[in-house]
């Protein structure tokens, strides 16, 4: 891996994403953790038949959040580039205001796997950590347990869940150093930190890139080993 991970443009950062790629991206619930420029670049790049692993199905396409224009992976669904979504919160809160995902789902254009949020996080974490599967408390006795192995351990029932990995992770962080060490802001850390480790190739969209030594090593959240490409917004 090159020691300096900076790439000059978002277009260049996503140019090798092939059709059929599996891509992780955060966007927990708002604009903060969303790799918006990478999403726009991927829309322009045009790769199709994508699988998106994310907390949501893309809340809205284009919108305004906290006074700022905001983009989610909903625009990739609107452009017909997505065939499958693995998410915890795929539809809008209100059935009367369906999001792009739900419209495409109702037209039969996109498939979905709905996963409890903690299980989604843990499956992604496992994917980055060489853990193939694990037994969790969550979902026992619910539809989430369908077709899954249940195992009683120390008198309590657990579901077996498999790791999730991806071809790419699109990460949104606050600052990076040239070696790919990342810091986040507030609640935008969320899935970003986990996804950075779980993909074969991780691309980080950041506000600022500084020289190594300018980030507090005690506060680096994603060590550079997980990051392949860095692009400044």
């Amino acid at each position, binding site marked *: 891996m090159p020691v300096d991970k900076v790439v000059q443009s978002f277009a260049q950062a996503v140019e090798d994403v092939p059709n059929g790629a599996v891509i992780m991206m955060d966007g927990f619930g708002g604009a903060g953790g969303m790799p918006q420029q990478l999403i726009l670049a991927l829309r322009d790049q045009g790769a199709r038949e994508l699988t998106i692993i994310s907390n949501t199905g893309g809340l809205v396409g284009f919108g305004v959040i906290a006074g700022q224009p905001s983009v989610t992976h909903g625009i990739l669904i609107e452009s017909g580039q997505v065939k499958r979504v693995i998410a915890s919160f*795929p539809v809008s809160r209100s059935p009367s205001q369906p999001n792009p995902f739900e419209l495409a789902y109702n037209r039969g254009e996109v498939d979905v796997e709905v996963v409890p*949020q903690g299980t989604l996080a843990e499956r992604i974490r496992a994917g980055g950590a060489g853990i193939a599967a694990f037994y969790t408390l969550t979902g026992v006795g619910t539809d989430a347990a369908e077709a899954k192995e249940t195992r009683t351990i120390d008198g309590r029932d657990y579901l077996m869940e498999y790791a999730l990995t991806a071809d790419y992770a699109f990460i949104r962080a606050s600052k990076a150093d040239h070696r790919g060490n990342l810091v986040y802001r507030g*609640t935008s850390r969320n899935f970003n930190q986990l996804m950075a480790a779980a993909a074969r190739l991780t691309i980080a969209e950041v506000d600022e890139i500084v020289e190594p030594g300018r980030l507090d090593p005690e506060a680096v959240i994603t060590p550079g080993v997980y990051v392949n490409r860095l692009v400044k917004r």
Partner: protein
Amino acid sequence: MNKPRLDREVIAMRVANELADGDYVNLGIGMPTLVSQFVPEGRTVIYHSESGVLNYGPLEAEGKADVDLINAGGQFLLPVPGMAFFNAAEAFAMIRGGYIDVSVLGAFQVSERGDLANWMLRDRGTGNIGGAMDLAAGAKRMIVAMEHTDTQGGPKIVRQCSFPLTGRGCVSLIVTDVAVIEVTPSGLLLKEVAPGWTAEDVQEITEPTLRIDAGLREIAL
């Protein structure tokens, strides 16, 4: 039943009364979010959100929205001293690991055994699980805050949930706009009623048979 029902703020106030000093509490989207406004003076409650924050402040209300400081419902929060941020795996490790003292959630249905259904309406084809299943599995105590009946006036407290389950036997206490009901090993125990309501009134809009607590009283705030 056309007797007057409690409004959302009063339900939230009643739930807030259940929170003890030093409790770590997770508030769900909607009515549960209101609870933090009504915690009695002198009690410090520490809020947890699946968005990856512990000890957050009140909802932001003055147009100073920070997109990097949100709760699980995407609402903007104010910072307070003593916060900590962490990733989603850690946020849910806390939940499953048994570190959340109280979870407050809304519900479509609660069964007499404390089963909870709150994530999916079957006719929609899919739904949002979010963090609810994790809270159902891991929180030490779960309080449901909801209207007692659905929009058609039908009971939401039922013998058996017809909606897809969020968790089995996970609910401890149900606070509605007409009653406070405890889930016990021997069924539902009616403990408090709204002003003007009798136990019979509550039973009429509740599917399973309620046991009546010896100390049944009006909802106290």
